[in-house]
């Protein structure tokens, strides 16, 4: 086994979600405990009033005007361009100068447009506007973001369901450590769609009220949307641009629960292995982690399985931890990217985020997540979990430089 040399730094971050269209807006929402979960307002569905979601409060035409791009782009691409641009601008890196890659994650791709195409197409296969399916493929949103940023070197898309973005950031880190790329913009983007809203509803795992992750009375998840990207750079890029990055990617792992297509094993064997392997790569013991950003969807199954894995790893002395999905909803393929940005924010701001709407611990698990926004605390190492359909489990650790 070869030991990879060199550190991979986070030079910039960008985010858009139900709690803000930028890093500063997001931090304000966290400080004020302002959730972004509410009624569906931007697309037509019979569940408009009954299933709350975490919408980005901006229509496609508004986003396109803000970004000066074509308003016919898919929402997934628009959200992705917004967050990726913010991350690149914050990084101070000239992406044209280096071997630069873009690795994005998405599960929805252009489904928001495809589903409207299909209404006409099903009536008559010669109908439906083709421009609404031209960006159906997941890889298309990545092309649109890459073309917007001027990235030509390496573009890739990962879809391992809700763990996708963490795998995108891990791949970016590996490509830099193997000296294949110098700079990687990595993360994920997903928009809300009727397809996913109905899919999760058919599984009966959507809460009809704002979700309560890790609470005994939790009753499912709320879907959300958004994008989160980080700019990863090598030592050389950091030195040449005289960057002062706040943190590094110190560990990551990708495992499979191999238990069931949608449900997690009761003991959380996949999530336990992901956390354990990520810690081993980072060379950290569990007690060195200052904050865990939980996957914490709010479903009965996930929170019990993930909580059990945390307990197995930590026993009684677990660190500060919270799920931020009560703020944003579950943003599927984007969640790992958005929550990576939150994790880095925790290190940069020396703060941790509340797990909104938590009241009572899950019986037998007795985990009490962080309930208030707290700052002026030492946050040196943060672990973020993302798990998905198909048993895909990934954990990533960011550490202060």
């Amino acid at each position, binding site marked *: 086994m070869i030991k990879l040399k060199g550190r991979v730094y986070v030079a910039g971050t960008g985010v858009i979600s139900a709690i803000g269209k930028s890093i500063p807006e997001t931090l304000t929402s966290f400080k004020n405990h302002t959730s972004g979960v509410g009624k569906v307002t931007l697309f037509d569905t019979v569940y408009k009033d009954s299933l709350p979601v975490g919408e980005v409060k901006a229509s496609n035409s508004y986003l396109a005007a803000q970004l000066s791009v074509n308003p016919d782009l898919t929402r997934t691409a628009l959200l992705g361009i917004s967050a990726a641009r913010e991350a690149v601008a914050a990084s101070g890196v000239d992406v044209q100068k280096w071997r630069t890659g873009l690795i994005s994650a998405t599960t929805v791709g252009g489904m928001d447009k495809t589903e409207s195409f299909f209404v006409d197409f099903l009536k008559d296969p010669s109908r439906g506007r083709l421009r609404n399916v031209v960006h159906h493929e*997941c890889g298309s949103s990545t092309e649109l973001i890459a073309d917007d940023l001027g990235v030509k070197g390496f573009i890739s898309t990962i879809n391992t369901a809700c763990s996708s973005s963490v795998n995108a950031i891990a791949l970016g880190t590996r490509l830099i450590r193997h000296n294949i790329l110098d700079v990687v913009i990595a993360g994920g983007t997903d928009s809300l769609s009727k397809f996913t809203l109905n899919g999760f509803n058919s599984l009966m795992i959507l809460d009809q009220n704002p979700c309560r992750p890790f609470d005994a009375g939790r009753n499912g998840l709320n879907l959300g949307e958004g994008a989160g990207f980080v700019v990863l750079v090598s030592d050389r890029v950091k030195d040449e641009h005289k960057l002062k990055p706040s943190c590094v990617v110190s560990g990551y792992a990708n495992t499979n629960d191999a238990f069931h*297509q949608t449900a997690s094993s009761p003991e959380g064997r996949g999530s336990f292995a992901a956390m354990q392997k990520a810690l081993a790569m980072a060379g950290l013991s569990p007690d060195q982690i200052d904050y865990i950003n939980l996957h914490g969807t709010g479903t009965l199954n996930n929170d019990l399985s993930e909580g059990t894995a945390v307990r197995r790893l930590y026993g009684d002395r677990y660190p500060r931890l919270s799920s931020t999905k009560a703020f944003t909803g579950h943003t599927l393929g984007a969640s790992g990217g958005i929550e990576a940005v939150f994790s880095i924010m925790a290190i940069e701001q020396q703060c941790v985020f509340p797990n909104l709407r938590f009241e009572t611990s899950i019986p037998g698990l007795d985990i009490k997540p962080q309930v208030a926004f707290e700052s002026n605390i030492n946050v040196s190492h943060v672990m973020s979990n993302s798990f998905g359909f198909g048993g895909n489990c990934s954990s990533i650790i960011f550490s202060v430089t």
Partner: protein
Amino acid sequence: MAVYIKGMGNISPQKTWGDEALLANPSDYSGSKLSAIEPDYAQFVDVKQLRRMSRVIKMGVAAGTMALRQAGINTPDGIITGTSFGCLEDTGVFLTKLIENNENALNPTPFIQSTHNTIGSQIALLLQCQGYNQTYTQRAFSFEHALIDAILELKENANQSLLVGGVDEITSYSHTIQKRFGIFRDRASSLNLFRNGRKGTVNGEGAVYVTLSGEKGEGNVVSLDSVLTIYNSYGSELKQKVSGFFQETSLETSEIDLVLLGKSGEKDTDADLENLAADLFPGASLGAFKHLCGEYPTASAFAMWLGARIIREGKTPAIVLDKESGRPLKNVLIINSYFEKYYSLILLRAC
């Protein structure tokens, strides 16, 4: 670093599984699509489990099982899949029901199985493989990125076996929609795809998995040397990037014995590819593969299977060859092009 091919499985529009000699009886198709010739899946998966699987999942699981059996491995250390379209059939079923039933009383199964990672995760579930599990979906880089990931993994730890594949399916919806874009046109004979230079190509599908390891085993005769993806580059820039690839490999361009070109039957773009090959690899034999498997985002996986079989057998089937140089087949380069936006190189070597 070279990684070694320990086993392969291929379900394609040709009879590429079983004991059949390499492309002994090529299947010819008329129309605009080439559908996979499927095996009896009961040889690979329990009948009860089969009932729940869509066609693309069955193809993937069966091709993966073939690749593992050939390698003599029960459970790999990781599974890496490339698929551009993912599980289109289940996506189409769920979308149709959603619209027809006006969002009511939907069966969740097609939704659950619509995500791209279903193929790789079903294999993991069947094999109880709790290791690395990854799915790439970057159009015609999906399979290439699965290979690049595998090479990195094996560089980090050579003593592993990874199952790596490229899988895409045609559905009646996807074919109808893609035909409306004008990219697929009816042809009288798919095997004559390159003879009547015209606009449009033919649609294809298939599932290829290979078992790769960083350690050479007995009987391993083909290694995967390097892979490169080239996005949005044309003309001299493209040529420069293809030449540049050889600075990263241990070979000179003159050492390439056979180039398999991803020509699609579009006269003008095929000529560009042929010129590129003639410029950079004047001494090599030239061949093609999309008249056998059709055009689809992971067609390069079919080409990799073909290139590896050719090296193993030391002979290029006549149906593949455009130009014979008479050189022994040690180094095979695949140059794929997907609608001129996605180019990729896969270099295979005898070992």
